């Protein structure tokens, strides 16, 4: 089987996965109360007539399997239903289009931080095993893993925005700057695509603190992962052979050890990327970032089932896709890997 066939097969496998997820989330979410609540406020939640009217309007009196059938039918037409009253009852897909790019942008930049800083630190730590640089990196990694995001976010804001005024306090762009023409919905990428470099830098300034805050745990994990896999690789026979051949240490590390050591780190990075997408709520709240994390928390708080399901399906989709990307990367990182 060629790589292309493998990719197609994996993408086709997404369909049953998504149906399975929709089945589980649909039935679970309908077991925890009356879905009509999503469309009712504090003034109307106890009003029998309002509840009846809402139930009738949203076909909530139909048997659950029938409701699920309607949902699947709509899903097949890329219709994820309507949000609850918190989002004004607009189509879920519209809300996802609004919020998801903001989170994706944070996750990509956060992962960028994690990879660009975490992997070199991991290498450094392994190369200087049990020496001062190693101890420093290990302590930093431990701090990074254990730092509560809400606390870190506030501290970063206090020092870098409030005290030193290097970065803006929050938001995606200043209100005085127009958003670039929407292509991906990610302002930094859209600004580059539109050639608006000023806007790019402004958007990047806004994204740096929140993405660093979001990516810090992943950075720490990747650093530790890279360190341990590099240490293991460095004990392999082929490394000894390379050294015996008289190659410089730099060549041994970068040409021979790094690619081997990267494989497990890449696996972790793939999984962590999904985590960044679904776990950005604290960062988004602290930095007033209008992303999908805040949307999902609002949806959960008001038991807005259509939005919860839309969120769950989207995150699953990206989890699967990021893992597929990791599988594809294996082929390039390790020539021994073959699909088929």
């Amino acid at each position, binding site marked *: 089987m060629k790589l292309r066939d493998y990719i197609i097969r994996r993408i086709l496998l997404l369909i049953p996965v998504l149906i399975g997820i929709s089945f589980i989330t649909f039935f679970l979410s309908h077991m*925890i109360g*009356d879905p009509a*609540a999503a469309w009712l*406020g504090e003034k109307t939640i106890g009003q029998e007539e309002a509840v009846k009217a809402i139930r009738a309007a949203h076909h909530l009196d139909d048997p659950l399997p029938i409701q699920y059938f309607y949902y699947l039918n709509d899903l097949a037409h890329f219709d994820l239903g309507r949000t609850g009253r918190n989002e004004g009852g607009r189509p879920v897909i519209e809300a996802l289009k609004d919020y998801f790019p903001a989170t994706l942008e944070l996750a990509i930049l956060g992962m960028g931080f994690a990879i660009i800083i975490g992997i070199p*630190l991991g290498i450094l730590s392994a190369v200087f095993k049990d020496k001062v640089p190693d101890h420093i990196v290990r302590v930093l990694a431990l701090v990074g893993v254990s730092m509560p995001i809400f606390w870190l976010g506030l501290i970063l804001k206090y020092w*870098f925005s409030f005290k030193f005024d290097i970065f803006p306090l929050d938001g995606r762009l200043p209100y005085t700057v127009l958003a670039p023409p929407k292509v991906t919905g990610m302002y930094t990428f859209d600004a580059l695509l539109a050639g608006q470099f000023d806007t790019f830098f402004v958007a*990047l300034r806004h994204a740096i603190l929140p993405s660093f805050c979001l990516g810090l745990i992943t950075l720490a994990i990747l650093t530790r992962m890279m360190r341990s896999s590099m240490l293991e690789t460095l004990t392999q026979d082929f490394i000894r052979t390379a050294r015996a051949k008289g190659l410089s240490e730099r060549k041994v590390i970068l040409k021979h050890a790094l690619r081997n050591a990267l494989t497990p780190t890449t696996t972790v990075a793939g999984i962590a990327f999904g985590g960044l997408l679904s776990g950005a709520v604290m960062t988004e709240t602290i930095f007033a970032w*209008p992303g999908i994390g805040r949307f999902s928390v609002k949806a959960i*708080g008001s*038991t807005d089932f259509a939005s919860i399901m839309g969120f769950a399906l989207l995150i699953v989709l990206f989890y699967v896709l990021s893992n597929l990307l990791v599988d594809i990367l294996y082929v390039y990182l390790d020539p021994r890997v073959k699909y088929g």
Partner: protein
Amino acid sequence: MDKRFASAIFVVAVLVMAFVLIAGCTSPTPAPTKSFTLVEMTISDPPSLDPGLEYDTACYSNTQNVYETLVWYEGPDVSKPIGLLATSWEHNADFTVWTFKLRPNVTFHDGSAFNASSVKYTFDRGVLMNYPDGPWVGAGISGLLKGGDDWMNSNNTEADAQAYLANEAVKVIDDLTVQFTLSRSYPDWYHVCAFPATAIVSQVFEQSNMPYKYNNWTDTYLKEHMSGTGPFKFVSWAHEDNIQFVRNENYWKTPAKAERVVVRTVPDVNSRVLAFDKGECDISQENLRNLPVFRNSTGADFKIYNDTLIISFIGMYQGNAPFDNVKVRQAFVESFDYETYRTQVGYGYGAFMHGVVPRGLAGFNENIPVLTYNPEHAKQLLQEAGFNKSNPQTIVISFNQGNTGRQTGCLMLKDTVEKYDLGITLDIQELTWATLLDKQKKGELDMFFLGWQADFPTTDNFIGPVLISDVYFAKQVKYKNATIDDLYYNQYFTAKSDAERKQISDQIQMGYLADYPYIVYLQPAAGYAVSKNIKGYQWNVMQSGFMWYDLYK
């Protein structure tokens, strides 16, 4: 280790840090122009921007600055209504027909003219929308207009809509005169015309962009677009990020001082404080629980207003035991430590309730006694009601998820009641909306927290929902007092004078006290934060958030 390799890694790290700092230092955020831009921060986004659709202060805090109602109030005094888009009004002897003269030479932001047809369009639109969770149904406005009840109870077909319109509940007399015909006597109709949901919308704007049909609350053009007659014009809305407005230079009064208004959604209170201190925020509506966070703020003053038209209470479900017994209800009323609650949750602000009508309304009467904490007597009442250790009972008390003030109230009540040592256990349940609704329908909740904020500053807006057996909360807790119902329906609205109406409302509130259907614990205070350099703020209890028109630097 190769030194060159170590240097290379060091260089990479330095480059990354340099990139971050360069990005941080180059192309700084463009400074706002010198003209005055007002920045408001809010906790959450509005659900939509359609004033006829939403029953929500997050929506009205924006729409009240873009749209205008027929009536508003002079300064903070809700007993002094003044014309806004109306210049005067009159009514017939039994308060069933109201005629409003409208302000001439007013235009909507889209350029169309404001006239009697706009008023008719707005009111008919609200009724025909028939949104069960909306303000027209929820606040009872639809039912007040002639034929409104029939429409609400119909199948909502085209023929039903035409039948409602044929009643001419809202009639254009001439270009600047409109007449409302009500389904029953209602002496406070002008207050309804000050409610933000009745703000006048532009028919031309909506119909030319997305023709509105009856019984539609799913997709209205006005959910995301606005065109009113007010001092600010809508510019854009980036969901959960910001909403922007500019000054209406053609406003029929002097244009506002703020040239531009930006409403930013910043959910974290610490971030809002930092923004105030950095000079990036001018105003924000705040929950009283944020008072301690603002104490050290150098940029903001935290203001508190006591006279909200809000009441907080706990309902006791009287459809079955134990709260079908008035002694048990009285015992629980006397088990709530009102003073401690006000101190702990309200930081000492808020007022104890005399009856169910809050301060500031005509029906408020200081001579109606407040509910009091009397645990000894409460214990005795519970013993008389048959509670004892040998027959342990569990009573479920619930509150909506995340409401820490209500949670404290539950814990206080639990502490007091369980100390009686009469075998009573209070099971506190923190529930999501969906579970709360489900359990309420099944009658599984014995006690639940409730709150009511006035739609209109009228006495009946509190007596009705709280004490009348077929309305809102009374229906929810199964409270019925036939005498009160009779006084309300057959005497209150047809009273010959305000004094007579006051007397009836006193009678109703005194009557309710003997039934103990609720623990009415507080008329809570509310707070807002305002930058030290913002001036001109005027508080009126019926406004939702800030009236930007008044503010200046």
